[in-house]
């Protein structure tokens, strides 16, 4: 490898390392790996894909980002109060990614993501009440208390989870794209992962399949700079950026500023067009930042990075603040409206928590439901029952004993 593109000075680009990288940039030509750093929100606003947004739609997008932030804040309080079990992976700081990308989707476009799922779930239109109830382990939860914080699904909204194992959802998303192509539909699948997932074998197998078979899938790396507590430079080998690995498979790729909604929309739109019109995959690396730890249980969130880094993000790069400024400048939003939106989002999150609190836990017998289609639908079709005889359950804990 040769040339300035591969100089060591910009080898490890962190979202938090903006100044260093800019200072050491040698070329006037911005290379693709750094494209995201130099986006001009006013130029982006002029793009057709952003111009086409009506005032109402813009307010809706802003509102959704605020709703995610408040939902996550409320979830954290419930978690700290011991109402939510297990892990809680919060999306605060990354809101523009889910909202921006999902705002472009049509009837035959699909979404699948990992365990940091609440932002995508709200962006696709899931109701926060059953989401919160799911985290509380309640029967009114979106999965009746069977999935929890990491596993939320809404097939009626083309939303396929919510998956717990790093990178494991990427072959699934590739399969959703395969099915769309098989069925002759003009659609695509957005398959999200974190920057840590990029080193999983399953991700590379999926990359190869998508490129080999020209599948309409968009692999979205939400690069929040840390795979749990390990920074990129300690976990990933790369010359310029993670998305560049797409080149090994002959896939198109780009980098995106995840703090600027307009940039998320602009570059995702290009990828969606490629998927819809040419049935070709894309890798997008969206630089973003999570304010909280990997999960709430990640007590070291402030040990592997400085407090200043977090404060710098909140003060200067926060996607919601930046969008509010932009929309106020455009005359789409007023400070007063923004406050109303925030208040309503808070209320919605509180109502979700109240709903969750008041909801019942699932009955013990429900442990056995939803494992097999054929068991859940017993008695509906004698032909299917005939083909599914015998014992399916080998221990019921006595929950059916009178």
């Amino acid at each position, binding site marked *: 490898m040769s040339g300035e593109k591969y100089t060591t000075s910009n080898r490890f680009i962190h979202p938090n390392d903006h100044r260093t990288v800019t200072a050491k940039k040698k070329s006037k030509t911005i290379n693709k790996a750094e494209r995201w750093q130099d986006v001009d929100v006013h130029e982006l606003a002029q793009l057709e894909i952003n111009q086409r947004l009506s005032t109402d739609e813009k307010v809706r997008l802003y509102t959704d980002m605020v709703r995610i932030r408040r939902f996550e804040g409320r979830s954290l309080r419930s978690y700290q109060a011991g109402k939510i079990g297990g892990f809680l992976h919060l999306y605060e700081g990354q809101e523009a990614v889910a909202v921006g990308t999902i705002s472009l989707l049509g009837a035959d476009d699909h979404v699948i993501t990992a365990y940091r799922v609440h932002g995508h779930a709200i962006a696709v239109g899931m109701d926060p009440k059953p989401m919160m109830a799911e985290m509380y382990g309640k029967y009114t939860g979106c999965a009746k208390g069977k999935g929890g914080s990491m596993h939320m699904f809404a097939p009626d909204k083309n939303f396929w989870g919510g998956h717990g194992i790093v990178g494991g959802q990427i*072959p699934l998303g590739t*399969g959703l794209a395969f099915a769309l192509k098989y069925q002759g539909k003009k659609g695509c699948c957005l398959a999200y992962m974190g920057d840590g997932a990029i080193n999983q074998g399953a991700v590379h197998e999926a990359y190869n399949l998508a490129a080999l078979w020209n599948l309409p899938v968009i692999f979205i790396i939400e690069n929040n700079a840390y795979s749990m507590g390990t920074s990129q430079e300690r976990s990933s080998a790369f010359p310029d950026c993670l998305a560049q690995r797409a080149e090994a498979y002959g896939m198109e790729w780009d980098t995106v500023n995840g703090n600027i909604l307009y940039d998320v929309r602009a570059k995702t739109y290009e990828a969606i067009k490629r998927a819809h019109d040419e049935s070709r995959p894309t890798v997008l690396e969206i630089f973003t930042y999570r304010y909280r730890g990997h999960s709430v249980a990640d007590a070291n969130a402030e040990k592997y990075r400085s407090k200043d880094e977090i404060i710098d993000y909140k003060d200067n790069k926060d996607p919601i603040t930046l969008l509010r400024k932009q929309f106020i400048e455009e005359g789409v939003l007023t400070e007063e409206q923004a406050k109303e939106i925030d208040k309503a989002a808070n209320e919605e999150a509180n109502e979700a928590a109240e709903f969750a609190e008041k909801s019942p836990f699932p009955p013990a017998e429900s442990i056995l439901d939803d494992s097999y289609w054929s068991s859940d639908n017993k008695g509906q079709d004698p032909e299917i029952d005939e083909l599914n005889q015998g014992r*399916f359950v080998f221990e019921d804990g006595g929950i059916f004993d009178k």
Partner: protein
Amino acid sequence: MPLITYRQAVKDALAEEIARDPNVFVMGEEVAQYNGAYKVTEGLWDKFGDKRLVDAPISEAGFVGLGIGASMLGLRPVMEFMFWSFCYVAFDQLLNNGSFCRYMSGGLMNIPIVVRGPANGGTNVGATHSHTPENLCANHPGIKVVCPSNAYDAKGLMKTAIRDNDPVFVMESTVLYGQKWEVPEEEYLIPMGKANILKEGKDISLIAHGRAAITSLEAAGILAEKYDIDAEVIDLRSIRPLDVETILASVKKTNRVVYIEENKPFCGVGAQIASIIQDEAFDHLDAPVKRVSAIDAPQIYSMPLEKIQIPDAARIVKKALEIC
């Protein structure tokens, strides 16, 4: 009734279901242009083309995951493992996504996928290629596991599996692929969870799954001929669901059981069956439930020794005589 090979029976099932349902496709390594590593799919690519027979690169996790994703949107993929031994590199896809996605979504989605291929030892390919993971897979609620022991069952169970709305893992046997059985020309389906009584008997129950059922039948012949023992032979056909009713009825009749499998013994299928029998038919037992399985070491390569490692009729007879 025509005699056809186990291989042909599986192929006929695939061809009939591909023709019947446009959502059915077969994917795996060498399944299309190469005609199948074990020729199970021979001629299907010529007949049905690229869309329905898809050659996958050597990426079991990738293509099995892809199949599961595709099944969520209503396709009915039939994924071939060249050997079930290769499932280990796809475990997360098979046993997290395949088995649990429906459950974790609260029943909102279905995974109507079939994963099939041979799962057997006995071909001198060493430990890595001789796995029998039916017990491992059946340990995951959400998965159905079938182990056809003959051509008739292979066809009928395969068709049932493809039409089923849950993930079904079909474990075949390369040792059986070339053997012939009578298979009717007219269409039939075989239920999962319905054992097949290969031979009625009154003195002892030899219960088995997969190829071990055939070995058990051979052992029953020896028991009758040499020892005047009338053994009942039951082929479970499917591990999960499990035909507990037929097992218990047989125990109540014979009061003696040997469970035979080519799997390793620890946490094997026989352990589960023995547990059920002692729990639900204890008073009907005149002897402990005995088990015959592969000898408990990684599968050995050496030809004569691998023959010893896998249960044969003599070992079954010997074990049966211990309790008769």
